[in-house]
């Protein structure tokens, strides 16, 4: 069994209002060294697969078709044995 951990983030340059709000919140409680916060999402998927290369190709396909919107998001992932 393999586990895929996919991270989806807004592309660089696209304003992330949630990240800004969190940054402001951190600043207000004294963490003034935080200069930028970006919020994304993480998906953990258990894959009934054994072959790493097949799994990678499949996760790429999932990201392109549904998990990320390439117009505004970028994605990265890691796959590990569990």
């Amino acid at each position, binding site marked *: 069994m393999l586990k895929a951990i996919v991270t989806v983030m*807004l592309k660089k340059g*696209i*304003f992330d*209002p*949630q990240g800004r*709000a969190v940054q402001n919140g951190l600043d207000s409680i004294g963490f003034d060294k935080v200069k930028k916060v970006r919020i994304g999402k993480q998906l953990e998927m258990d894959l009934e697969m054994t072959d790493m290369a097949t799994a990678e190709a499949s996760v790429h396909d999932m990201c392109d*078709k*549904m*998990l990320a*919107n390439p*117009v*505004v998001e970028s994605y990265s992932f890691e796959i590990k044995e569990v």
Partner: protein
Amino acid sequence: MNWGVLLFPGSNCAEDCFHAVDKILGKPVKYLWHKDTDLGDVDAIIIPGGFSYGDHLRPGAIAHLSPAMTAVKEFAANGGLVIGICNGFQILTESRMLPGSLLQNRGLKFLCQDQNLKVDNADTPFTSEYAAGDVVVFPIAHNEGNYYAAPDTIAEMESNGQILFRYCNPEGEVSEKTNPNGSINSIAGIINRTGNVVGMMPHPERSADSVLGLSNGKGVFVSMLKHLEAKHG
């Protein structure tokens, strides 16, 4: 002349759209189901607002992969009129039938208000009842209505007249002050390059019946009807 209103689990503006066609236009309309692979004999399709699939992952992200959307794409490729309102707009951008994407509102708040809009292009099958520069009021109700597209895409859309509506003040002035959600160039509604697919965040169906206090949304549906009547003779 048949109209279809496409239903997904979580659509919640479908009855208003149905009402606009059935009672305001007085034309035949039926519901289409997201699992349908054959949409039957329809001349125009409305993708209503709501929270299809609970807006999980991203608004429209799951809905756009429904079997019915394959049929909607084919319908549009053959020149059929398609309008997506609110969540319907999000579904159309997710399906790439329209450029860009709808991000979370700049102010992080769900917006629910009557909204002034300026008609930017009145020379389309969806806006011919208006004149360019008209100010209309349609309600908005969304959390992800902040329109974004890459700068070169925006430039291309602007030069092609693909912007139909922009957020404005009652005098029709468009500025960052009158932009409720952070949309680039105050974009509220757009049309595809071939002029038969529209997406808009504001709700014309909620301002189509004068009994509700607003009625200039009716123009969108009347424009579509006139276009269809001219086409079908």
